[in-house]
């Protein structure tokens, strides 16, 4: 069967299906399609609630609305384009007339914001970033823009080279050079950040102002190690300096691998023994853990299904930790619940109501929930051949039966966290906890185990 004729049902098929008009093989084909396409499957459930006429009507009505919306936007588009062209002509005349080193320039830039569409701003900001990276400026689609951007390009390049000139004669000690580089990087960062679509031209102008002010201050400053005052630039420079300091402090680096096949173990926990200081290995099994000031530092590596490994380490060293599979058999349960008010009171009929606290549980029971998760969970595609992963998640069950504030306590990688949040969020309701016969909030912890079977 050729792949070109791939079955792709349309709205009329949905209506036929729900009205029972599809029979036999055709019906089966449609259902098989639904098995593979969750979006269509859910939509089919919705369609079963309306008649053919109703659905056609609704879709037609909405279609008109959206068409109208599209037409309206296009009209506005023309107006903005016209306004933009006018502004461009105005600006380019200003640029030609004004002296390049004048500080008044940034003030005129805000006028640009009036007519520009968002995407035009994006293009300009991106162009400046290209300059800093010494790349070729990409071709501009609309002709009139070119005059403006070329002006800005030469201007931007001039400012950067000015800055660098200012820095180089002042480089004395190696350490100072670091700080200076940081400041230049901070400048680059500022311009890069203006690429954000939401920021308007005004912010970009402020960045340029920051650059200008930095030029000024650098001339005034004698000790080169003193960074400048432009608000954001200073704090990001400081931040970077601090980060550099941290990496020099005593830390141990390493990689965790499995004994069987020397593959890394992402998500393995590495703790400083006797403390609550720890970290988690990344997707390549690498980790970095800060150590204490003492000579003796013991780290413990652990991972579900593996035997824990202890190791003495020295600051600044690089270690390789090999973990063996645990001889204990792994439990078959996918979900284990820990309610903070965990007591499931089975003998409620005998005890008096006043003293009972019943924890929250899934509406149809934990075993059913386990089945649901088992069916629904999808093992995220990752670079490494993980056969098992555990995510610990907690959330609050509100009296309205929904999980609230789903938080990941422990997880090997973001993809697993995302998947767990998804299944819980679209999962069944939870019977709220009851205290003394009244519904109360309850925090529930679940341990969700990803297994081979979930690789679909």
């Amino acid at each position, binding site marked *: 069967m050729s792949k070109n004729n791939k079955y792709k049902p349309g709205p009329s098929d949905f209506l036929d299906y729900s009205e029972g008009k599809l029979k036999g093989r055709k019906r089966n084909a449609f259902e098989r399609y639904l098995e593979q396409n969750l979006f269509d499957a859910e939509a089919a459930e919705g369609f079963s*609630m309306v008649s053919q006429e109703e659905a056609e009507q609704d879709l037609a009505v909405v279609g008109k609305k959206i068409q109208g919306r599209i037409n309206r936007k296009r009209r506005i588009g023309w107006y903005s384009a016209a306004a933009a062209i006018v502004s461009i002509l105005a600006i380019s005349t200003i640029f030609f007339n004004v002296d390049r080193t004048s500080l008044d320039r940034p003030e005129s830039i805000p006028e640009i914001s009036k007519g520009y569409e968002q995407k035009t701003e994006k293009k300009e900001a991106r162009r400046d970033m290209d300059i800093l990276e010494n790349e070729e400026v990409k071709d501009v689609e609309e002709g009139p823009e070119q005059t403006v951007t070329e002006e800005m390009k030469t201007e931007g390049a001039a400012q950067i080279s000015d800055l660098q000139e200012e820095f180089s004669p002042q480089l004395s000690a190696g350490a100072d050079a670091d700080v200076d580089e940081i400041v230049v990087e901070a400048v680059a960062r500022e311009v890069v950040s203006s690429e954000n679509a939401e920021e308007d031209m005004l912010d970009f102008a402020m960045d340029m102002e920051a650059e200008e002010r930095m030029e000024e201050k650098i001339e005034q400053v004698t000790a080169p190690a003193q960074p400048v005052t432009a608000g954001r630039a200073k704090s990001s420079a400081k931040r970077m300096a601090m980060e550099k300091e941290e990496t020099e402090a005593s830390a141990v680096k390493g990689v965790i691998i499995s004994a069987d096949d020397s593959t890394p173990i992402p998500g393995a926990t590495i703790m400083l023994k006797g403390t609550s200081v720890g970290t988690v290995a990344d997707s390549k099994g690498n980790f970095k853990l800060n150590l204490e000031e003492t000579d003796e530092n013991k780290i413990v590596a652990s991972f579900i299904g593996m035997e824990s490994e202890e190791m003495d380490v020295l600051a600044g060293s690089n270690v390789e930790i090999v973990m063996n599979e645990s001889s204990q058999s792994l439990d078959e349960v996918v979900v284990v619940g820990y309610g903070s008010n965990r007591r499931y009171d089975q003998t409620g009929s005998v005890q008096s109501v006043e003293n009972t606290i019943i924890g929250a549980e899934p509406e149809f029971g934990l075993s059913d929930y386990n089945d649901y998760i088992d069916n629904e969970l999808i093992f995220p595609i990752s670079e490494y051949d993980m056969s098992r992963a555990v995510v610990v998640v907690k959330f609050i069950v509100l009296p309205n039966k929904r999980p609230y504030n789903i938080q990941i306590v422990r997880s090997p990688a973001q993809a697993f966290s995302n998947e767990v949040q998804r299944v819980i969020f679209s999962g069944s309701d939870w019977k709220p906890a009851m205290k003394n016969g009244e519904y109360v909030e309850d925090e529930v912890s679940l341990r969700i185990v990803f297994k081979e079977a979930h690789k679909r």
Partner: protein
Amino acid sequence: MEILCKHKHHKHLKVSWKKYRDLSDAELVEKFRASGDLEELGTLYERYMHLVYGVCLKYFKEREGAQDGITAIFEKLITELPRHEIDNFKSWLYVLTKNYCLMQIRAAKSETKRLHNYQVDEKIFVESEQEMHPIDEEEQELNKALQMCIEKLKGEQQQCIRLFYFDNKSYREISDTLNLDEKKVKSFIQNGKRNLKICLEKTDVKK
């Protein structure tokens, strides 16, 4: 196996579909991202509008809300689409739609102020494309391993799988034949598929 080829042009939107009809979803996404032209987005949306409608219907259980949902989600697309890297438009639209529906329901139900703090980050729910289960592929030539694994399935699972995939019977027909609830039939098929997958992987490992 009959060739099933249906691609009806849904003329609910008057967009000049001739221009864009043959472009793939990914191509239309790129075009829209570059140009910001709503007509391109409209063409793309038109392909899946009925699915958005269906899902909204399912959650809101009434037509007005579903209609509003379609327009609201279109508006969301305009701002959100350029901001994300999207591998598969249909999956992403599904996530967007579902989140919208759940948020609407939550807003309607909420009495406590705290619920307003709950933020649904669309990124959280991005699903990777479903991997094709060997049995769902249109190829009817099943290799020996699959045959063997099917035979290993338990009674009702095996029956349902055979009727659904080999005899091309619908859920309704199977439920009549075996005297089971339609929901049970679906459940057997899904669990059966899962067991087949496990069994196939075991035989792969042995090789």
